[in-house]
Structures are given as C-alpha cells and as structure tokens.
C-alpha cells in the first residue's frame, strides 16, 4: 500500500507512512501530517498497537471509528480529508483523525440581534448541523451531503424538511447543484453565483445567513438550506424580496414597533435609490418643486460650485463609495482614521472649497446611511448599484426619466424568480403548521 500511495503523492513532504510490527501482526499506516491530529492517532492506533493488550485486528474490526475501504479510488480523497489509512490483514481501513482549524468565536457578527439568540454558525459542517438539529428536532429533517468543486472538494450539506419542502424547488436545486462544475468553491457567495448559472443577476435570489434560528425558521417554512464546510454562512432558498428586508429582530420585538421599522426600511430603500437622481432632476429641471426657502438656499450654496449638478453628485457619490469600500477592507486599527479623514475632512473641505454644495453633502450622507439600513448585505450591494442608472436618466430626462427608471426597476423585480418562486411577491401566506411559504404560483 505504501508504495502505491507514495507514487500517488509524489512530492508531499507531509505525507507520513509507517510500517509497524508488534508481536502478532504487522500493519501499514499512512496519513497526512498537516491534516491530522497526532495525539488522536497515537491514542487510537499507535498506543493500542504497541501495547497489544487486545489483538489490534479485533479493535479495528469491531470499533465503529475504523471504517473499511473497498475501493482504491477512495484512498486519496480519504487521506486528503484528514483520515488515516491502515492496512491490516490485507484489508484497508480509514480512521478519522482530522484536525480543523476554525474560529472558536460563535457570536453573530454580520446579522446581530439585540435580544435574539447570539450564536452563529461555525466553519465546521458538523457544528452547523448540530446547531440546526437542536433548533429543529424533527425526524423529517433530511440531510444530504455532497462535495462541490473539482479541486476544492468542498463538503456541503443540503437540509430540508421532507414533509414541508416543495418538491419542484428541491428538484430544481438538486439539478442546479449537479450542474455546478467549478474548480474551486470556498464561500456561500460563490455557490450562490454558480447556482445562478450563466445569468447575470443584480438582486440576490438566495439569502446568505449566519443565524441558526433563521435557518431553522426557514426549514419550518419548507425552504431548502445549503450549509458549506469551511464557511460560516448557510444559504436559504428560495426567498422573496421581503425576506431580505426582514431581520430576525422583527420577529422578536413588539408588533407595532417592528412594523414601523419595516416601513422605515422600505422608505430608506426608496430614498437611497432615488435621492441623488431626484436632486439632479429637481435642481436642474424643476426647481419649483422645492419650497421657496429651500430653492433660494440651494441656489445660494450652489452658486460657488463651478460644475453642473450631476458632476457634483458623481464626485460626492464616488467619494462616499470609496469611503465605504475602504472602511470595509481596512484593518480595524486604521478604520477609524479612514472615516475621520473621509467624512470630516473631505466632506467639510469639499464644501468650503466650493466643489460641492452643502445640500449635496446632506444628500450624500442620507444616501449612505439609508443604504446601511438594509439588513441584508448582498441586497444592500444590489441597491447601492441601482442609483447610478437613475442618475444617468435624471441628467437627460429629469423627473420623467427617474419615474420611468423606477418603473423599469419594478418590472425587473417582478420578473425575477427565485428557483421558480415569484420573487417580488408582497402578499405572504402566513406559515401554518404543515404549510410553507413557497409561492402559490409554482406549487399549483
């Protein structure tokens, strides 16, 4: 065995192979040092083998931890997952001694909740399954494991409640997963992109989440979940636009306040999309829309600005986008410097230098802040993009253009389907015990 393995892994220094012999028997052992926990190996194999209180072949045969391998093709993949291969009595066994390096911090970081559960998924698939099974102790919960990616061989798990799931959606998802033939897959986002196929999507049609409570709720609604080994995020599908605008806190807090916050979120989406375009079209086409005071003060503060309104808008938006982008990537220590330099110094100075008007600074910051209100990151990204075509339309056609642009967006949103389920569906059937929210159109 060792010779064969050595030819398979030609240049791997961390491949350890050993031939051992005790009083009764001789075995061959192979494992990849860097993937395995040495103490586990010595505890399970080396120590019992050398002490030989009990015949080692019996231990191997009866312990469930040692799994027999029948095919030679499985050798490489088992070794690469951190298994130890054992050759004993002309039989092959594998033993799981893998060592996973992962972040131990299990607090939610992306979707924090004030009074909801604070635990997040981890990068280990098993822990993730544990968290979800604990929250959804139903025998109907089906778990299917696969690997994705030709080289990366990422392990994923597909979870669903087989009593509540919509078969069409499930079949659709499975088909799409089979079609994936990417080389490397590491994150939930990549898998989502592969699931989308060739279509270039603007809006996310899946929900990437780190919250086990959200996942278990979705399973109860009959949705399909994909968990990825090595990623802290799970994928929920199919979803609606409404799901993306929803936070878990909406379900944990009192009715009226959470509804008000939801309305506020939708208003802020509208603002972040239309405000720059509306600024251009009102300032340059229809200033009579403002109150007189505002018109005069904008005219006054703009009189120092040498460029037309749309250049002013583009300059400011470019600056704020840079600021947002920089503060995402910067290490935490420099992060505050970035915002100080960008926000205070640039904003103030740009206005004093007469590059932008003071109203424009307000517009820009409202646009940025209302964009941050959107609870889902990938939706926030999509919506961040939406304002630019509108700006373009506003420059050429004024308010009419903005209205037509908004209409186009609505048409586009309504045409999207998330795995066969209408995406922009506002009406939501309340999830009852044995029913899921899966769209009346496709399931009928």
């Amino acid at each position, binding site marked *: 065995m060792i010779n064969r393995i050595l030819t398979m892994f030609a240049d791997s220094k961390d491949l350890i192979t050993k031939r051992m012999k005790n009083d009764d028997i001789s075995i061959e052992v192979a494992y990849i040092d860097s993937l395995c926990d040495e103490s586990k190996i010595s505890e399970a194999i080396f120590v019992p083998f050398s002490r030989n209180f009990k015949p080692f072949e019996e231990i191997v045969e009866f312990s469930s931890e040692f799994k027999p391998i029948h095919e030679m093709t499985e050798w490489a993949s088992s070794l690469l997952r951190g298994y130890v291969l054992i050759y004993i009595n002309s039989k092959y066994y594998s033993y799981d001694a893998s060592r996973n390096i992962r972040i131990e911090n299990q607090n939610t970081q992306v979707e924090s909740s004030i009074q909801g559960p604070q635990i997040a998924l981890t990068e280990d698939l098993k822990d993730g399954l544990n968290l979800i099974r604990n929250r959804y102790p139903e025998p109907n919960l089906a778990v299917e494991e696969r690997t994705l990616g030709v080289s990366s061989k990422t392990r994923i798990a597909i979870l669903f409640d087989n009593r509540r799931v919509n078969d069409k959606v499930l079949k659709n998802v499975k088909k799409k997963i089979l079609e994936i033939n990417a080389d490397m897959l590491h994150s939930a986002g990549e898998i989502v992109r592969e699931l989308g196929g060739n279509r270039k999507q603007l809006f996310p049609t899946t929900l990437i989440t780190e919250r086990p409570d959200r996942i278990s709720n979705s399973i109860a609604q009959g949705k399909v979940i994909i968990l990825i080994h090595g990623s802290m995020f799970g994928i929920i599908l199919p979803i609606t636009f409404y799901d993306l605008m929803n936070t878990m806190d909406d379900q944990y807090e009192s009715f009226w306040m959470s509804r008000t916050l939801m309305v506020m979120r939708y208003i802020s989406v509208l603002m972040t999309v239309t405000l720059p375009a509306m600024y251009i079209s009102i*300032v*340059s*086409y*229809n*200033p*009579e829309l403002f109150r*007189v*005071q505002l*018109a*005069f*003060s*904008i*005219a*006054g*503060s*703009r*009189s120092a*600005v040498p460029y*037309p*309104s749309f250049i002013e808008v583009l300059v400011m938006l470019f600056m704020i986008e840079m600021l947002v982008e920089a503060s995402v990537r910067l290490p935490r220590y420099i992060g505050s410097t970035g915002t100080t330099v960008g926000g205070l110094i640039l904003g103030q100075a740009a206005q004093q230098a007469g590059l932008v008007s*003071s109203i424009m600074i307000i517009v820009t910051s409202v646009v940025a802040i209302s964009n941050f209100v959107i609870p889902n990151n990938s939706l926030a990204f999509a919506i961040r993009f939406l304002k630019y075509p509108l700006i373009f339309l506003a*420059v*050429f*056609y*004024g308010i009419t253009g903005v209205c037509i642009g908004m209409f186009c967006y609505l048409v586009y949103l309504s045409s999207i389907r998330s795995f066969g389920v209408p995406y922009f569906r506002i009406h939501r059937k309340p999830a009852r015990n044995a029913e899921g929210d899966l769209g009346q159109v496709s399931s009928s």
Partner: protein
Amino acid sequence: MRHLIFTVLFVFIASLVLGGCGFKDIDKRFFVVATGIDHSDNPNKPFRVTLRLAVTSPKIEPGAGKSQLETIDAKTIAEGVRELKAYVDKELDFGHCKIFMIGEKLARKEMDQAINWMTRRRDIQMIANVTIGHPTAEAILKIQPKNERYPGNTLFLSFGKEGTDSSYTVTEYIFGMRKRRTEKGIDPVLPIIMPENETYRISQAGVLNKKKLIIILSPEETQLYNQITNKYLKSSLGGNVEQDPYVLAVGRIQSRFKIKNNAQGKPVVEMRIKIHGLLEEAPKLVFDKDWASIEQELAKQYSKSVVRLLKKFQRQGVDPIGFGLKYRATHYSGGDKSWQEWQGIYPNIEFDVQTRVTIEGTGLIK
C-alpha cells in the same frame, strides 16, 4: 435577446434628443418672486413690466433677503419679459413667482392680456396669487420690507395659508381668477395691496366685472365679503347693544343662500348665516345678562350690513358671491336661457338675510 437589446438601446439613444435644453442648474436661474404689470401711458408700449428678482444667498437671516428690480416698457407682456432677459445674466424662472400684481390703472382699463399671459406661460404656476397694486404695481414692488428673511417672503406669507390669516385679506389664485372671468354668474374679487411705511397693507379688495375693476371695497366690507364666502374664518363682528360696544371673535361662520320666489312671486335671495364665537369686548357683568337679546341684536345689525353690501354689488351689476352661478345651476331651462333670465332678474332681486349669532362664552371664567 440581442435584437431586443439593440432596440432598447436605439430607442434610448434616439430619445436623448427629447431632453432638449431643459437642463439648467438652479444657480443659473434668476427666480422672479413677484411680477408687476402696469399701464405705462405710452400708446406704443402700453405695458410696463416690473420683475422682482431674488438675489439668493446661502444664509437666511432677517433682513438678508435682497432683491433686484427690473422694469421695462413693452408692446406686449411676453415681449417685455423676453427683452428683460437681455438685462440679466441668468435665465428668468417664474416657477417661484407667487405674486402677480396688476396696476390699478391697468385693472380699471383692461386686464385681459395680462391674465391671458399668466395662464399660458409654462413656468407660471396656476396657484400663484393675483393682486392689484395701488397706486401702481411698480410702486409696491419697489418696497423692500426690512424684516424679510428672503426676497418676497412678506408677500408670500400674507397671501399663503401659513403666515397671517387676516380676515381683511382676500386671496385669489390664477386658476380661480380665470374661472371667475370666464364663468357666467360669478365675478372676480382681487386683493388690493397698498404701500404703508416701507411695508404693505392688504385690507381692501376690488370687485371686477368680466373686464375691469368696478368697485373698491372698504376694509369693513372686505371682511364682510370674506365672512360670507368662507366657513372657518378667524374674524370679528362688532355692534352696539344699548350703547354698550360688543365685539365677537368669530370662530365659525357658515352661510348658505337660496334663490326663491317669495309670497308675492318676486324672486328673492334667501341668505342664512350662522355665527359662533366668543365675546372679546363686552361691558362688565355680561355673564349675568340675557345673552339671547344680545345675540339677536348683533344678528340684526349684521344682517343689515350684509344686505347693504349685497345691494352695493347689485347696483354696480357685479356678482362676486356667485348668485348667478347658483341660479344657473338650480333653474336650468335649456341652453343659455337661464342665464338670460338671470340677467333680467338680478337688478331687481331682493335680499332676505337672516343671521343667527351664538355666543359660546364671555372669554372669562366667571
């Protein structure tokens, strides 16, 4: 798919031309805050157009509202405005012009052209106020009130709903003016602005027939006119009962009228007015007096003054309340016949005004 993309792209590019020259930044526009149109005594150039242009500033402080005045004599108003463009460095914008003032002289002569221009021009909003300037619109526009925070503010607040709501101020919008000028049976009423120590006094109204200014009402008559045409109007009602002066602060006033034939078969306008209010001025110990008699006495005096005002309108052949319109609506007899009937009826019609005053309190806790 590709075909569709090209079609969409083509339509988009082709429609780029449609935008035209509408794009003009707000700081490249000169906002007109008030427009005055006068008669210039020059037969070749009969119109004198005066524009009050706002000089904008980023700071809004009391007294900081500066404005620039431009005057020109022209053959027509539109020509005058076009010519004025050559005098200023930015595009004139009437979008925020809320006050259109017609000089008294022009109003007495002929104001057809002025109203026509206002209703046709694209950027003039139909909700702008039409007024009459006394003695001339130019003289009124020259006044720059000292406490203005931004140019034109004083006039805007006087006519708008958010500033003062004086019961002596009549307001009329362009659309209303147009309606009253074209509709048979109702005549326009315009407020008259008069200069007074660097500020304005807007306490009188002028009644017009379809063509020109006919009568100027006194402030008391203006208030009376306002009271019988509005519902919730903070106003006052005064009168003497047994030599004691009483003033009632009117909280709600409601009036309705019908046109009927009376017992003798003569047409009569029956007007019923209901007034609710608190006493603002009254003799001492009014609480213990009999309110009913005070109410009746005040009502009688009020009715009398209303009849006097209505008779005045009747004598001049104008109808600002809209009796004719009501008659046409309720006595339809085919085509234009009811209107012709009314023209025969109105000069001799009688007025029967009855008022019910309710005193809700004395304004004091006993």
